[in-house]
């Protein structure tokens, strides 16, 4: 599904990703973790083509993404901070994205699920952070694409909506899709993820499932395991 080889990215003198190799295939939920500034968002944006790699190659569905854009038709992306053009109405935004992607969509179902009906005619600048995030989720899940990339999907959600989001993600997984998630909520990772990709200083420090992580760190508790992996590095 996604194959990354020798990926380097520098912002000026600051090396964010160095010689990163990553192979993600098959369906399942892949959690991309790592401390702040480890390059999670940069990696995701590289896959999306928003950040241009300094060197290295990225393939999505067996095709290089360099100078291509049509592959994004197969990706649904949930950005980290839901910033939308303020003077658009929710309805208009949804219609616009549909118009741009020209794909089958199921937004009505999702709007109902998150109870967004009363907000449809509101301008995006007037919405609260949580509601914006719900709109964000609707926009991401309304299309049927084999790859989903979710950058901090839980931000600002109330517990009820969080449960609905989890259900949604699981549904998609059961349809055989590949789902990439970054988050800081460890409980969410433990509960949802099939595989963990741990980024540190611009490279992959660990890749495997929760059990493997615990064995490796000799911890019984997931959160401690994650903490331990960080300290391991500081020791190393």
């Amino acid at each position, binding site marked *: 599904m996604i194959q990354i080889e020798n990926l380097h990215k520098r912002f000026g003198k600051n090396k964010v990703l160095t010689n990163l190799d990553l192979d993600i295939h098959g369906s399942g939920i892949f959690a991309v973790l790592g401390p702040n500034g480890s390059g999670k968002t940069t990696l995701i944006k590289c896959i*999306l083509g*928003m950040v241009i790699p300094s060197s290295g190659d990225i393939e999505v569905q067996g095709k290089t993404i360099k100078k291509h*854009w049509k592959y994004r038709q197969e*990706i649904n992306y949930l950005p980290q901070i839901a*910033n939308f053009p303020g003077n658009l109405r929710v309805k208009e935004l949804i219609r616009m994205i549909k118009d741009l992607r020209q794909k089958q969509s199921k937004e009505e179902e999702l709007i109902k699920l998150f109870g967004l009906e009363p907000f449809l005619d509101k301008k995006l600048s007037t919405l609260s952070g949580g509601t914006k995030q719900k709109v964000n989720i609707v926009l991401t899940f309304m299309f049927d694409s084999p790859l989903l990339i979710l950058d901090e999907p839980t931000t600002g959600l109330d517990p009820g909506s969080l449960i609905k989001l989890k259900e949604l993600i699981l549904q998609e997984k059961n349809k055989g899709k590949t789902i990439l998630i970054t988050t800081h909520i460890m409980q969410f990772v433990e509960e949802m993820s099939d595989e963990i990709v741990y980024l540190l200083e611009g490279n992959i420090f660990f890749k495997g499932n929760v059990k493997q992580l615990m064995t490796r760190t000799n911890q019984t508790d997931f959160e401690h395991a994650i903490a331990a992996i960080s300290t391991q590095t500081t020791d190393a």
Partner: protein
Amino acid sequence: MLKILKYSFYDLMRSRWSYVYFLFYLALGFVLLFLNNDLSKAVITLMNVIIVLVPLIGTIFGVMYFYNSKEFTELLLAQPLKRSSIFLGQYLGVAGSLTLSLILGLGIPFILYGLFRSDAIWDFSLLLVTGAFLTFIFVALSFNIALSNENKIKGFGYAVLLWLFLAVIYDGLFLMSLILFEEYPLDSFSLAAILLNPIDLSRTLILLKLDISALLGYTGAIFKQFFGTNKGLVVSILMLILWTILPIWRLVYKSKRKDF
């Protein structure tokens, strides 16, 4: 690209500023015509306004729009769209809506005052064409500046500085070099200096069409020869097109290499 253009255009058409701009020109047109009721006189006054205001408004509006639509841009970048389409679409949306405001805002009062029955129609059309060119040029330049500067304040500052340079400082330097080197033949130098600044070029084009060419005297023979003929007009228009295309080209080039 057309879809992006459409959305940028709609977005702008409903923004307050397009209306302010449109109403400003509408008011200006009516006031000018009301005050002297003479189309050709009004064309001269309008020229002054267009030479100063159109580049300034194009610059500020362009920078403002670019920074304000950062979220919109990022939203689009994750969609299956070509980068060049996204930026070209936004650019054309801004430049197009500004040009539309200009043409409608000035066109309506002049048509109501009998433009089509007047001989000023060619001068007026030339005025609108140069106005459109200046809009496209300065929006493109400001997009370039905004694209290269993440810092809003800096970008804004550079944009205003660019306007100030082309609209005022350039002429000052030009004047000084003319006076400094007055013993030398300056015709070709002046011609080149005029061609290299879109504001000066537009001003000269309009002035010569308004038949002030005779003021140029013997020394201005080369200007008359150059700008007075169709060849000169074609070269001038080509220069304006070049001035439009170069920043657009850089915009596309830079946008393809930028990280978001």
